[in-house]
């Protein structure tokens, strides 16, 4: 029983991490139909700069931890915003080329990160509490999983509030629904393009710092490794659907952890099989909208 709870909790924690990446991807795809291959490097850069910041402030304190999360988020936001303005915007409406440009950015950035921080993983340390465990129903669950769950829940809640109750949120929702119509009404949708990139980037940057605490190290490939699972999550959840991404994140990660534990480490494969099954049974994903 306690093992079951432990595996379930690690699954939900990992799902929370997936959601931090997948939420941005899903929003960007929903509004702009851009598959953002560079999303992983937003995360990696957030993790690296967050790590640098924490190092300078004394890595084991709570203040350093909070600062690294804040800085990671800011770095992700700035990087993503600049990417949208400099690379995505000039290729307006040319979706394949936009994807290619993000591929190139990811390619170049990973190489640059290796040049700056080296190709070996940098081991990190945070507040001691993160490495301790809390007993829940007899299972000893590492505290970092709770931090991940809280972060993802906060993100989901604030995204829902933002999308429901603010003017920009309304424009984004309307843009996902029918962008031509929003443009025809005289609303500058381009601003919301930059905005979704900024939101996605900040979630990825925060996710980067947390992912580094989750895995215990930062490396130049941290983000791109997670990105593949985030892609799978967004396809299974239904492209462009935030709720779908949230549900699929948890489902996929829990499935993955259970397969890793009970089926001798086959989690990654099971996830791909799950993707194939979803595509065969329901090509638009769990909550994807029926094409109009």
């Amino acid at each position, binding site marked *: 029983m306690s093992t079951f709870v432990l595996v379930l909790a690690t699954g939900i924690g990992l799902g929370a991490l997936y959601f931090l990446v997948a939420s941005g991807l899903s929003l960007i*795809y929903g509004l702009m*139909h851009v*598959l953002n291959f560079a999303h992983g490097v937003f995360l990696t850069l957030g993790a690296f700069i967050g790590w640098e910041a924490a190092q300078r402030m004394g890595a084991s304190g709570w203040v350093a931890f909070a600062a690294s999360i804040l800085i990671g988020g800011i770095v992700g936001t700035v990087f993503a915003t600049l990417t949208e303005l400099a*690379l995505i915007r*000039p*290729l307006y*409406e*040319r*979706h*394949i*080329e936009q*994807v*290619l*440009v993000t*591929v*190139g*950015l*990811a*390619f*170049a*950035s*990973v*190489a*640059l990160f*290796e*040049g*700056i921080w080296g190709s070996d993983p940098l081991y990190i340390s945070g507040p001691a509490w993160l490495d301790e465990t809390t007993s829940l129903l007899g299972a000893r669950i590492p505290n970092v999983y709770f931090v991940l769950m809280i972060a993802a829940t906060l993100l989901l809640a604030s995204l829902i509030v933002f999308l429901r109750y603010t003017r920009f949120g309304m424009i984004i929702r309307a843009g996902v629904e029918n962008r031509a119509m929003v443009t025809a009404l005289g609303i500058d949708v381009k601003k919301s393009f930059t905005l979704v990139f900024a939101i996605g980037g900040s979630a990825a940057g925060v996710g980067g710092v947390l992912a580094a605490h989750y895995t215990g190290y930062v490396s130049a490939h941290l983000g*791109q490794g997670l990105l*593949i699972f985030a*892609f*799978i999550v*967004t*396809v299974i959840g239904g*492209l462009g659907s935030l709720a779908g991404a949230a549900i699929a994140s948890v489902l996929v990660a829990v499935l993955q952890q259970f397969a890793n534990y009970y089926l001798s*480490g086959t989690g*990654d*494969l099971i*996830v*791909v099989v799950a*993707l*194939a099954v979803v*595509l*065969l049974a329901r*090509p*638009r994903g769990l909550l994807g909208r*029926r*094409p109009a």
Partner: protein
Amino acid sequence: MTELTRRYGVAVGGIALVTLMALLPLLNISLPGILPTPTYQPGALAMLSLAMVFAALALSYNMLLGTGGMLSFGHALYFGAGAYGLGIILENLGVPLWPGIVLALVGGLAISLVTGAISMRVTGIPFAMVTLAFAQAGSVLVRRNSSVTGGEEGLALETDHVPDWLVGVANTRNLYWATLAVLVVVYLVAVWVDRSRLGHLARASRENELRMRVLGLEPTRAKLVLFVLAALAASLSGIAYMLLQSGTVPRAVSADLTITVLVMVVLGGVGYRWGAILGGVLYTVLDQRLTVLAGSDAIAGLPSILRVPLSEPLFLLGTMFILVVLFLPGGIAGTAHTWLDGRRRGRSHDQLSDLEADSEENRTPVETRQS
């Protein structure tokens, strides 16, 4: 008539080029800065062979992206299937090389048929993501099952059953000719695909799949055949890679390699066969030369703000790729065609924008399937 003369000219030029390439190992040509040694020595031949392997792989990818309009992020899976397939078969089944190659190709065929059929449930960007996921699964399988694949260490070629004339540095010449043969075969397949009914159908459905369906044609089947053919060509390149390098590493099935191939094809020019070949060769040469440059004293002496980026070849290639996508949408071949031939103005631009029209329209077939 002019079209016929042009084709004739292209064929003659192609044969002349292949003859020249075939004669290179017998000549003493030095290209300092590009080739590490004169052309008759193993160093230069090995590098040219690798360039041709990647040119063949890029050509196979161009069949998918250029002809079929399918943006796949999992093409490395089939390259790896060829390389690892041959390695595993030679090590475990004890068959001679030629049946081994056939078996490896059959393996590539089976994998591409299954993964292709599933991936084609979706089109456009979701298709790209799904192919990526399959390649990732392949990559995980290779890394995990180290008893069969050698894991991170890679798999060395079992040479007991490989003919002697294909083994060892002394026989680099023969390997070079074998690779040239592979490139020619893949090129001829690409030409055939582009001129056949299959290619016409694939191109037409790239433009407007719904219209093809209304005409009673089966674009999905044509695209699957194209996908499998491209995968087979990639497997063949993988087999050549395995023989050439006497082994393979997990990178041969990684998403990294797919992206590398994508970079080659886009640099060269999507939709142009010679562009793909040029892209493959250019990438290989640049990668090798930039690595040498990165280790040179001139770079080591620079301040770190210049030294760090300049000592990362992939950073420079990635940046170049971004610049090409932003400013030369047709790649090298597309831009050259636009300049050389005013009558075809705009074509270079069309290749990629066609794909976009495609990604928009591709949503329609999904509807028709579901309603």
